[in-house]
């Protein structure tokens, strides 16, 4: 297969799958080009991500990225979590094929959206996407 062992590990046995009834922040993103959808749920305690879950409709890379991304942000402050890039997700997965990098972008965007959903609910200003988020 074209995927690394790590991707296959996270694809076959994804971490943090599922819905979260009492999420503090939810972000749903989709790539219209490709028709994939990723929903990220966050449980936030004292500005720290206490729990994260995901639901994903997409390819192996999308599912593995969701799993790895949620894993990476757990226990981090919101500011730290915001800085988890798609590159970091791909690296943690021991690389993604070039045509699949956009699936990890989805994970980064999902997290950003979930964090801003939480911030808005708290009456805070949403954080700005860096223009070169890629």
């Amino acid at each position, binding site marked *: 297969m074209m995927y690394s062992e790590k991707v296959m590990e996270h*694809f076959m046995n994804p971490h943090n799958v599922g819905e979260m009834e009492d999420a503090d922040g939810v972000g749903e993103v989709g790539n219209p080009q*490709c028709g994939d959808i990723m929903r990220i749920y966050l449980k936030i305690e004292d500005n720290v991500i206490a729990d994260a879950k995901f639901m994903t409709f*997409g390819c192996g890379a999308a599912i593995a990225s969701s799993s790895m991304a949620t894993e990476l942000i757990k226990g981090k402050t919101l500011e730290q979590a915001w800085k988890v890039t798609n590159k970091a997700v791909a690296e943690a997965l021991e690389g993604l094929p070039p045509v699949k990098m956009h699936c990890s972008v989805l994970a980064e965007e999902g997290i950003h959206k979930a964090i801003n959903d939480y911030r808005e609910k708290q009456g805070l200003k949403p954080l700005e996407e860096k223009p070169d988020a890629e």
Partner: protein
Amino acid sequence: MKNNNKNTGNTVYLDHAATTFTDPVVLETMLPYFTENFGNPSSPYNIAHISREALDKARQQVADAINADTEEIYFTSGGTESDNWAIKGVAFANRKRGNHIITSAIEHHAVLHTCQWLEKQGFEVTYLPVDKYGQVRTEDVKRAIRGDTILISVMLANNEIGTIQPIPEIGRIARKKGIYFHTDAVQGIGQIPVDVEALNVDLLSLSSHKFYGPKGVGALYIKKGSRIDNHSHGGAQEKKKRAGTENVPGIVGMGAAIEQAISQLEEHAAHMKKLRTRLLEGLLQIPATHLAGHPEKRLPNNVNVIFEYIEGESILLMLNSFSIAASTGSACTSASLEPSHVLIACGFPHEIAHGSLRLTLGKENTEDDVDYVLQIIEPIIKRLRAMSPMTPEELRK
């Protein structure tokens, strides 16, 4: 439970539309032409005479298989070359008569991309729509014909959904109007009868590796008297129409493979249909699962189903981990990030087309293979649906 076939090993191979293994019997016929009987067929000595006779025999085998004359068979490097040659060759050779071409929206890329390229060269191309089963309507063909139409190209059977097209009828229309008619029979041969007379075609493409012959060899049937440009320039091979030292072992293999495929056609089709029915019935037990393609007018070895709410590549990955080889029309496996143009042409929305799974059976498959797949696939679909945000509540349990 799993089949242990001597070719596919412990893989349950269900992607015969992508390619087949070379039948060991076929390979056996090829071997002497690599080593002892290696002469260049154009050379004038004994060792080369053997190669010439081998080419003659293979040409006869291919001609017999499709009810053509040997002078109408031209060997190529595969289905893509045959399609490219047929379409470009007829288009350019008949440009003075007109520059309109008709094809269908569900052709293989070897036809579609060639037509798109011809559009850039100033030809006009009509891409016929299909009905929800993936069939071209003959009335649409009639309506599309113009005074300057020089070529119609519609495939015999589709590679993704297996739908068989009304080729004899389209051929009759084309012939009445004096328009060249090409069919891509790459998927049909060896599965259903292929007779160039009955099909009313002027050109027909074949590819050896789809019927247990070697890769890298194919043929184009060109009806006698057809006006078509030469494919390549060089030596006098293939009656000067397709230059290049002949791939003798490959051509010998193609001949042996097609002869075997035709002689086993009925038996093979019966075997395929039996397995297909079992497989399809099992798959359609899974909720929110749809058949793609025509329920009856389809290749006996083709199953194409769509599982709603999930994506095809992830299905393939999981199947692969259970040593099952299959294919999908999902955008996620295509370089273009577009789902299968065939499923889209059949009217499936993008997100539905994503969940497609194509299983194409082959002669080595058994009922055990089918049962194994059915046993493996249900929990896979469940697991993926459990992860999908699109899955409705009642399917999550």
